[in-house]
């Protein structure tokens, strides 16, 4: 009995019911739109939802937008990018464009575009691709078995379907493999502090090569102690403190 009560107590503090979550969400929206706006209160409400496991593209979008309105550029880019990863939409792209305009770094030099595989991984929906991969493989197996069962004159349609599902399975498997590779090898992060020093070597006394500013999206290449090696989209690289960047 006591254990059940304790469990109920813990659950009540850890989880929101859908109605409670919607109420907290509205609380954040109200703070955002009150006159004068209270962006800090709006942020706090959305972050409360995240801390209780109530995520989703809408919460992340609103949180990113509140951060952007509050001029917290690093957090704004982080949450908007996370929302974009879950579900692409025009409003996320628009607010991300505004955040990029406000960002303080101008990357000069060659490159710019991400590598092909990263772009493919970025453009595909992880879950949809994985589902398509699994289903098409099983469907292919079923069609192969059916094909074998049918007499030669009746195999045409099955053969066509079998070929199509095999092609689909091959493409989907390739995309899932790319996603998996990119997920483990291509780590993106966002610079959080207003200014972060990037050194030439992973050591406190090492010379500062350049500085980056809040909201810049970087790629994390490797880590050493408290430093991570970051690469900018123009291939500029250096070491900065791990706590200064947050992975997407």
């Amino acid at each position, binding site marked *: 009995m006591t254990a059940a009560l304790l469990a109920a107590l813990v659950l009540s503090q850890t989880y929101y019911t*859908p109605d409670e979550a919607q109420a907290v969400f509205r609380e954040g*929206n109200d703070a955002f739109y009150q006159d004068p706006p209270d962006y800090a209160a709006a942020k706090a409400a959305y972050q409360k939802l995240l801390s209780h*496991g*109530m995520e989703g593209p*809408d919460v992340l979008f609103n949180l990113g937008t509140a951060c952007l309105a509050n001029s917290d550029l690093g957090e704004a880019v982080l949450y908007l990018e996370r929302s974009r990863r879950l579900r692409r939409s025009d409003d996320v792209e628009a607010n991300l464009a505004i955040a990029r305009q406000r960002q303080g770094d101008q990357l000069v030099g060659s490159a710019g575009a991400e590598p092909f595989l990263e772009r493919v991984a970025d453009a595909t929906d*992880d879950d949809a691709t994985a589902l398509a991969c699994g289903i098409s493989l*099983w469907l292919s197996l079923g069609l192969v078995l059916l094909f074998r069962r049918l007499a030669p004159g009746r195999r045409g349609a099955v053969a066509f379907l079998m070929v199509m599902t095999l092609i689909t399975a091959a493409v989907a498997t390739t995309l*899932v493999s790319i*996603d*998996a590779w990119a997920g483990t090898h291509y780590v993106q992060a966002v610079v959080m502090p207003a200014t972060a020093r990037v050194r030439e070597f992973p050591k406190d006394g090492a010379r500062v090569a350049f500085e980056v500013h809040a909201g810049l999206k970087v790629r994390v290449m490797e880590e050493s102690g408290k430093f991570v090696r970051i690469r900018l989209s123009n291939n500029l690289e250096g070491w900065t403190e791990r706590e200064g960047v947050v992975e997407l």
Partner: protein
Amino acid sequence: MRRTGSHSALLLLGLLTAATARAEVEFYQTVDRTKIGTEDTFHLTIVVGDAPEGATVQFPAPNDFEVLQRSQSTQMSYSLGAGNSGVIKRVQKYTLTMRANRTGKLTIPPAALATAQKTLKTEPIQVEVVKGRLAPDAPPPGRRSPFPDPFGNFFGGGNDDSDPFSGFPQPPEPDVPRGSSDTFLKASLDKETAWVGEQVNFSLYIYSRADLAAVDAVTMPKLEGFLSEDLDSPTQLAPESRTIGGVPYRAYLLRRRAIFPLKAGDISIGPAEVDITTGWLYQGSRQHRKGNPLTLKVKPLPREAQGLNVGRWRINAEASQTSTQVGAPLQVRVVLDGVGNLKSAVMPKLSGPTALKIYEPTTTDKVQIRRGTFGGTRVQEYVVLPQQTGTFTLPAVKLRYFNPESGQVEESTTDPLTLTVAAGAGGQNYAQAPAGGSGGTDAAGPKNRLEAGGLKQLRHTAQFTSARKPLWSRPWFVPFAAGPLALTLGFAAFGLMRRATSGSDPASEKKKKARAARARLAAAEKLRASGKTADFYSEVEKALLSFLDTRLSQAASGLTREQLDLKMAAAGASEDVRARVKSALETCDVGRYAPGMGDDAARGRALDEAARAIEAWDDK
């Protein structure tokens, strides 16, 4: 003259001295204090009463003392003497303002009064001299400044705001430098400690006991670590009367600056230098004087005051009108007023809703110096161009500043301004927006401007999901995705194994031959379109016979139709199947030789008949 009553011994000494010359001459000397500091001045008074005609006073000339000034006064008194005859008494007083040159118990030697008959001497006086300053300098006894100020309290006493320098505190009484006590240069600050950014007044005076003809050159110290604003740089010498250590001086202001320290710590100011000419016409002499260095202790601003204006400030805002039309500009004046360094003051920016386009302001500074304090008024005039109809509020402008007097951060806030904007009537002559602005005035008149852009609005409802990993990273995904491939490989391996272990299995042989028969049928299908009729039917017949070979387990090609029927019956084929097979074989025989069987339709029928016969056997 002020005598120190506590020094009764000295007084007695003086009286005794006077007693010796009671009948003829009264002659004694006194000091106003017997314990002094080396920085103090004191007064030695020598009194001569009823001195005979031609008597001269010889003043003491001690090596241990410096005589800064000498003055003289005469007093006549009338009294009735014996026999009611009138007696006139004449008393002469000589006052010497002196300063000790060293410490210790020093002796002021006696003064002498030389008459025709004899020379009278006073008693020597001993004084104790210690280092430093013991007491403020006393004014010379019995008299005021020899340079009475004809203007009285004209400058200092009134509250006339029109005089920017009224109320300047007098600089502290300077120490008279040894060796150049007649003319010296003195710099002073009105504060010993100040906050970063707080105003401190720096004054440079030259003190002189002689007439100054001209100041030829003034070299100001480098005021490093300060922002400096000129308060007063007189172009003509204007003397002020000052008494320092009882000695009257003329003080000439050379420069007065407001300085604002930029950093915390002890900031030093080097000595100023000046070249002057004293005396008049050809009797003048040119002299060079160097002033004193100064040090100001500057306190850092509290953490919460970093970056704020320093001083006492007040801010207010006003709009030229509160009701207007779309496209009709109005002016909003934000006024900063107070004391402090106006030139480096920072004003908060006026902001407002996007419906009101606010242009960059024009800024006007009016510096004012009141009672030696730097300050003034800064006016920022914004042009606000309404772009939408409605009621809009320009939020309050808040200014936080550090008040050095209270040592705290204080705040001044304007009232919010509410503007009502109505739709503009087309074609009216609206005031034009400032150059470079997109005022929206065109031939049709200003419109309610609805501009896209800005942040996208928040989502009003949410679908919540818990944070989760992508499907491909879940542990079950790889077995799920690899399952079909694994099963395929498993089936293949199983078939291979079974084939390897079964060797020449009759059943598998049968199946193999049946597959071969079907393959032949498929080959016949390919011949269907060719013109070789005999080959086509021969291939179909071979496929059928080959199928029968596998089903009858013996060669069917040499059998007559009756034998074949018996064998099929023995193999369990039904009447219908047997009829189908025989019919298909007949068709093949006829097709090879009979005319009309070469067309595509006949070939198709033969192929279907053979296939149905095979299927019928398999389905029996």
